[in-house]
């Protein structure tokens, strides 16, 4: 059979492969190449070695956005997962309406980042108006605003993954724990949470990469205001490419570093998932 299938290569693989070269491979290689060059148009590039990377390290707005993103990611990973887990525990109990509540909590996840940004801009500015300030007044308002927005968007998603995990806990285990005299908190701590470790890993890494790569919500909520101080990494890279003439090479160098960080997170995740599977 292998031979019959093999002959079908042009029909089965070629369309995807050609598109993959156009949409990923060629831009990726060009990107790596350009990160070592100075240019404003790609037909006229000058090799500068690590010059772009050096310039990048001296760019305060980049360093600021890096730390801002790291801090944002840490806070959002913790808040989203804690809230999602607590809600999931409650919505696995028996009472009227759990199905409807799950549906409602999941819904914001489907709304795009730009729309989310403007919804929360009007809400948060409405609240801040009591003190005569706006989200753009100080980076800390943009920061917490974005945390609230991301919690609203992602709690439902993580909740669904936690619910699926909780529901798969074998009843017999909980029963025997109960016979052994474990109270409900002990059952949660010693039975449910250990079994949920794969779900916890998945949700942690999903929120981690989502936080790190955040762009649309950042752009729509504050756009980096005031004076770039609420700018996250992805937006900083975008602004370097399209807002500063002659800085395209530096933008590309930033993108390479950004990629290395995101890929590193992904590899740690792969390792974490693998080693846990082996344990089980």
């Amino acid at each position, binding site marked *: 059979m292998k031979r019959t299938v093999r002959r079908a290569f042009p029909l089965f693989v070629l369309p995807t492969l050609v598109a993959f070269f156009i949409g990923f491979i060629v831009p990726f290689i*060009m990107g790596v190449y350009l990160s070592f060059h100075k240019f404003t148009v790609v037909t006229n590039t000058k090799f500068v070695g690590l010059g772009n990377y050096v310039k990048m390290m001296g760019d305060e707005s980049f360093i600021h956005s890096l730390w801002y993103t790291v801090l944002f990611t840490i806070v959002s990973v913790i808040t989203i997962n804690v809230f999602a887990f607590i809600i999931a525990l409650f919505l696995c109990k028996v009472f009227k309406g759990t199905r409807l509540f799950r549906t409602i909590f999941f*819904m914001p996840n489907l709304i795009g980042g730009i729309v989310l940004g403007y919804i929360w801009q009007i809400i948060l500015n409405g609240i801040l108006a009591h003190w005569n300030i706006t989200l753009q007044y100080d980076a800390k308002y943009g920061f917490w605003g974005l945390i609230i927005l991301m919690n609203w968007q992602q709690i439902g998603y993580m909740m669904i993954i936690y619910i699926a995990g909780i529901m798969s806990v074998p009843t017999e285990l909980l029963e025997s724990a109960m016979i052994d005299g474990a109270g409900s908190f002990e059952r949660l701590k010693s039975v449910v949470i250990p079994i949920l470790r794969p779900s916890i890993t998945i949700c942690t890494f999903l929120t981690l990469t989502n936080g790190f790569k955040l762009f649309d919500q950042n752009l729509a909520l504050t756009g980096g205001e005031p004076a770039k101080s609420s700018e996250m990494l992805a937006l900083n890279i975008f602004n370097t490419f399209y807002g500063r003439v002659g800085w395209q090479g530096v933008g590309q160098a930033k993108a390479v570093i950004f990629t290395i960080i995101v890929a590193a997170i992904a590899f740690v995740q792969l390792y974490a998932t693998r080693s846990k599977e082996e344990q089980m």
Partner: protein
Amino acid sequence: MAKTKVKSFDPAEKPAKHGWILTLVFSLLSVFFIMPILVVLWNSFKVKSSINLTPFQLPNGKTFVGLENYIRGMQQINFFAAFVNTLTITVLSVAVIILCTSMCGWYIARVNSRGGNLIYFLFAFSMVIPFQMVMYTLSLVANRLGLTTPLGIVPVYLGFGAGLATFMFVGFARSIPLEIEEAAMIDGCGALGIFFRVVLPIMKPTYITVAILETMWIWNDYLLPSLVLQSDYRTIPIAIQYLKGGYGTVDWGAMMAVLILAIVPIIIFYALCQKYIIGGVVAGAVKG
């Protein structure tokens, strides 16, 4: 949705004695949770000068303006054209992605050659690369190849989205027992026949999962189309961003109306295939 008896995961848990308290608490929490959308909804009927500073006031006799914001918003950004563009791009791209990547994924799973494995590795690699890495160069390539229309962007989406989609199809195709396909070949089916008559029906759940993940991505995508499409083609997210930047001061009345218009199709989509969306998202998260 099928009514199954709700059971708690914990056997010690009886149908809560005070279940109504939980129902009440979560009802309030749910109202609070959807409040942001309700606020935008009622502001979309208010005169634009009373939105920005007092969004929590319901429309009243003085501030109610009917559908004025909707008319103005739709005109300012040509919402209808943006909607058609977004729908065209999403439907075509998703259709092309699931067709091409499922064929490609099945081929890789069955042929298992060195080349196939290399392609598979590259697909997996592309999944972890953030869009910022290729955004600048991708827009140059798309521009050079003239892929800057709602039709032209389809191969761009196929290319950038190929990684995750193919990856999921390869995973599923590997779990299909070979015997069924071999039987089909003995009955005289070629590769195409095996794929469309045997494999495709078996892979239906994966098609639904991938289609839902890709739909949610492409419908809401802002950055890729804003860089690739010519400026006279706008999708809904691009149109909304344009409404913010295009006119100096933001017309919050038009903005509220357009936000509601952008949310309505999503809510309809969610109501129609809620079961598949939630299932697909979980499957995608666990495998991706």
